[in-house]
């Protein structure tokens, strides 16, 4: 059996288009130092550092843990670098947790970051390769056809994505760290925004952000001594499947369903909508909320959009299962950190430390991340209680 572990410190940067005031190390450091401060700890209290980010091409620094050693107080310590595409922030948190859950370490620091302003994410994701057609149209170009297929199957009204875009931006307006601050956003504004990758409009897509997120994860005994309430890690799961294979279910990938089933089983969840108080789910394009509502078992197949339209996932509408109270990826997207932000925001909720976007009385929350061609999944469930 895995040892109990808990999140005892969380640190983030303010997410923004360009953090022009810091170096790459400065950005990562800021989140890490905030997490240490939140945990009431110093650099010497940390035994190992686990760092994650998406492709090195975003910053053009190869294996950046090598350069970041000193900024993260890691000289003489173990340092591990995770890269699992867009899910990396989540899987990095899971690898960090395994350092403690395996009984190998008592207290580790984990950090994920992206400083996307150093390059152009669209470039880094579609670098030219000989002998291939240069049709790569960025992540939106990849996911738009899958969304179209979901719309066809579910017969969802055209404006479900628009509703999600507004809902998450209103959530983000409660979160001072969120990149996009749009407290006055309207359905009409989203609908009239530029069509990027039909059926995806500009305001239905995530921004490109600079930012970093960090957590301190500690063993049961140390977590109990922590000055602030710990977020107990109640379940951890990862799943991968290939990008392309004959008959692949792209709208609701098997890897996502299996991953959810695994993490729910560990956390004793039988009905996620009922048992969980909120969820931070990787939704970089608005339509992925209804799609993941189904994939993660919050709604039956073809019914996810109904929860969205009823307001069930909205904090402002008093929904029973708020999704992305922090504003989610639609408000802030430093790619390599986005998954960890989901995991950290889930932990903030059950620590009762989420400020204006706190879900009242949240005791159990889901953190979710996915990456690649919606083929890599990582999830955890955190709770205010050990079991």
């Amino acid at each position, binding site marked *: 059996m895995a040892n109990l572990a808990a999140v005892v410190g969380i640190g983030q940067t303010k997410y923004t288009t360009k953090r022009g005031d810091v170096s790459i190390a400065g950005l990562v450091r800021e989140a890490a130092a905030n997490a240490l401060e939140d945990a009431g700890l110093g650099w010497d209290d940390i035994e190992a550092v686990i760092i994650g980010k998406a*492709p090195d091409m975003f910053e053009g620094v*190869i294996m950046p843990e090598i350069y970041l050693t000193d900024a993260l107080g890691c000289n003489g310590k173990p340092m591990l670098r995770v890269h699992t595409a867009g899910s990396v922030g989540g899987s990095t948190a899971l690898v960090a947790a395994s350092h403690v859950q395996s009984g*190998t370490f008592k207290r580790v620091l984990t950090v994920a970051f992206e400083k996307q302003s150093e390059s152009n994410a669209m470039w880094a994701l579609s670098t030219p390769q000989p002998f291939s057609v240069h049709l790569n149209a960025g992540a939106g170009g990849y996911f738009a056809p899958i969304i179209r297929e979901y719309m066809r199957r579910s017969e969802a009204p055209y404006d479900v994505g628009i509703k999600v875009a507004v809902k998450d931006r209103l959530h983000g307006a409660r979160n001072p760290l969120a990149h996009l601050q749009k407290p006055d956003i309207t359905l009409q504004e989203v609908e009239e925004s530029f069509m990027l990758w039909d059926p995806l409009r500009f305001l239905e897509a995530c921004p490109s952000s600079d930012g970093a997120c960090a957590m301190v994860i500690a063993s049961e005994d140390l977590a109990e001594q922590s000055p602030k309430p710990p977020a107990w890690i109640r379940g951890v799961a990862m799943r991968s499947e290939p990008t392309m294979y004959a008959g692949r279910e792209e709208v609701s990938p098997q890897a996502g369903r299996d991953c959810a089933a695994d993490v729910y089983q560990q956390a004793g969840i039988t009905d996620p909508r009922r048992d969980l108080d909120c969820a931070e789910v990787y939704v970089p394009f608005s339509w992925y909320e209804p799609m993941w509502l189904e994939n993660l078992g919050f709604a039956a197949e073809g019914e996810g959009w109904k929860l969205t339209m009823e307001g069930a996932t909205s904090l402002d509408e008093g929904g029973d299962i708020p999704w992305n109270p922090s504003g989610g990826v639609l408000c802030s997207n430093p790619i390599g950190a986005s998954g960890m932000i989901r995991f950290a925001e889930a932990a903030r909720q059950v620590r009762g430390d989420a400020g204006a976007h706190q879900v009242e009385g949240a005791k159990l929350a889901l953190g979710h991340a996915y990456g690649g061609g919606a083929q890599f999944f990582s999830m955890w469930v955190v709770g205010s209680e050990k079991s």
Partner: protein
Amino acid sequence: MQQIAIVGYQQSDCVSWAGATNEVELIMPVLRRVFDQVGLANAQDVDFVCSGSCDYLQGAAFAFVAGVDALGAVPPIKESHVEMDAAWALYESMLKIRMGHAKSALIYGFGKSSPGELPIVLSQQLDPYYLAPQWVDTISLAAMQARLMLDQGLITERDMAEVVARSRGNALNNPHAQLSGDIAVDELLAQETYVSPLRKSDCPPVSDGASAVIICTVEQAIEWGVPYAIISGIDHRIESHNLAMRDLTDSVSTRQAAQGAGMADGSVDVAELYAPFSHQEIILTRALGLGENTQVNPSGGVLAGNLMMASGLSRIGELFNRITSGEARRGIAHATSGPCLQHNLVTVVESA
């Protein structure tokens, strides 16, 4: 701590150019052989898979995603990846087993270094403001390290050539080696310098290839009924990124990792060291305090073939081979990352 067994290891040939072989075509035959070695059908028969690779070697983002195509990952599998040498993927896999979320794991690393100019590509690992913009190549950094040792009288050029001669000689017994042969020390010393004080023979060849290891709980190894060796300890440590802040003639982090891995708890019959440059083998040997009773790099080490992102994992595999063949009872495998031995991992492996 729970004992974990190594039950399989396979490596491709180290070749200077893999030709018309893409990543998945490079990996698949190695995986087939390691599955056959343990008697498994495919990655569905292990509980966890973790790989190591680096996008910049072949110049494409998400290079590792192609690796998943080699696994037969339908239905979906538990899988992760480090942008590091796969020795660190093995480390991550051990944690998964220790926490009880897996009984077995497949680890693989692959690198196609031939498409780019490797020493220049790796210059972009350095400080992005001070060093990377100067394009200081990795061979030159190692050459400065070697000169520090020569100047301080810690080594001679003959010492370095002896490392190379032994590596090439040992590699005669390694069918996957790229460089092997019976070569005299004087013959090596007669060659002119390349990036002085290094000769070309002091540097590793650029290689394409892949390797794979399967580990599991001892109970699982017994159930599978295959020969196994025990990983009794593993640890890794990193040092400052400022090369001049480090004592480059020593490897403090290797010593720390060896201590953490419990190397001193028994004899070290064999050591497989990931020393890309000849003088670095001497640094490592001394940092670890290895004496005459330890056979160093019987495989020839990476001077005989250097699979970036897999060589560290291969060192563990080569050690496994020595132990399961009965040539050694206990030994260590070392992996490194970063310029001039910045980040080091030590694994202790014992006979079952």
